[in-house]
């Protein structure tokens, strides 16, 4: 089987101007900072970004927004990124806010071949604007549709050379479902291990979903 470990420059070069990218992480937890820094360096622009929070000042995705590379954002909480806040004020359509559980389900739908889900969350609030409302068994739900990306950036503690990922603790957050929801998946990891080193109960994301493994580490 192909060894999927490649240089970060090569992996990130799969992103094209205008692509939809997903970036895993919850604030600073489980964020693929080395590969997103490389994306800033390479200069792709006009991106659509799906990220729970677009980071806080110590996250690379924070700077990606600050560098003006992102045209449209799907997020749930942007209170830690004033650059995203500025985008929203200046161009309200450029930042789409979703309840966090809804955002998680939208990405899961994109990864798992579902067209959408019915959620009661957002009913009776501005979140329902422009969305289809359905009644099932007398209860109102919003139809929230799938999100699918061109490239996903995810973070794991370790990968084996086939791309099986071990994600520790609650760094799992959006990383698991984003790995399913993109055409090309870049997994940034602290450790790279031989195939079989991660036991079958410990693999968090199957290698079948991962296209490239890049080495993470401290980044400026």
């Amino acid at each position, binding site marked *: 089987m192909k060894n999927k470990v490649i240089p970060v420059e090569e992996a990130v070069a799969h992103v094209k101007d205008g692509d939809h990218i997903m970036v895993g992480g*919850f604030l600073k937890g489980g964020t693929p900072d080395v590969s997103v820094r490389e994306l800033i360096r390479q200069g792709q622009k006009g991106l659509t970004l799906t990220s729970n929070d677009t980071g806080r000042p110590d996250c690379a995705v924070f700077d990606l927004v600050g560098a003006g590379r992102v045209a449209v954002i799907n997020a*749930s909480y942007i209170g830690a990124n004033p650059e995203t806040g500025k985008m929203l004020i200046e161009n309200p359509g450029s930042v789409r806010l979703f309840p966090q559980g809804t955002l998680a389900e939208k990405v899961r739908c994109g990864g798992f071949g579902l067209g959408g889900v019915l959620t009661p969350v957002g009913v009776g609030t501005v979140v329902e604007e422009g969305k289809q409302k359905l009644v099932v068994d007398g209860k109102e739900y919003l139809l929230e549709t799938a999100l699918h990306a061109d490239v996903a950036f995810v973070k794991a503690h370790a990968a084996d050379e086939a791309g099986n990922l071990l994600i520790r603790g*609650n760094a799992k957050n959006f990383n698991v479902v984003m790995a399913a929801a993109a055409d090309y998946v870049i997994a940034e990891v602290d450790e790279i291990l031989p195939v079989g080193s991660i036991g079958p109960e410990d693999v968090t994301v199957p290698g079948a979903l991962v296209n490239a493994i890049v080495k993470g580490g401290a980044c400026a």
Partner: protein
Amino acid sequence: MMQGREIIARRVALEFKDGDVVNLGIGIPTLAANYLPEGVHIQLQSENGMLGMGGAASPEAASLDITDAGGNPVTVLPGGMFFDSPFSFGLIRGGHVDETVLGALEVDQEGNLASWMIPGKRVPGMGGAMDLVVGARRVIVAMEHVNKDGSAKILKKCRLPLTAAHKVNLVVTNAAVLKVKPGGGLVLTELAPETTLEQALAGIEADVEVSPDLKTMPIL
């Protein structure tokens, strides 16, 4: 004299039953965990992917793989577990969280709640708040009785965009405790120590019934 924040936190803590799963919002709600009655053990849910959250991690143990919903390194207690965002919000939306305690900008007499945006000024996003308020079995709002300028936060009808409609069960402030009746309507049931009924009512815009069993918060 007891600080307002401590009054709120101590009173909220009395709402928990042994074995409850509880999600505490950032700020005053988080303090409630410090004042649990003897014999009451709760399990803290952190929406970024953990049940059984412990306190802040020591510098040596701190890891970005185990963080609270503010992104800060914490510990996990025995009997806890980690999961990804779809599972975490599945637990929340599915009614598996017994209490969610969160702050609010406004609450009204119909049990509506506004906590996530001030149009044109501050739009941090709803994060997980909408899911929590819709999904948790009981919704407890923990907040200052009035705004800094003395204006009311407990209104006839919320003016800011809602977090959810008709979902609040209990409001705990530094002056009073108010129950929301099923179907709407507020009942003032308790006063903070050293607070008179007139003082409490003066800070409330909403129509309020005063409980015939009005008492002082049992927090001393």
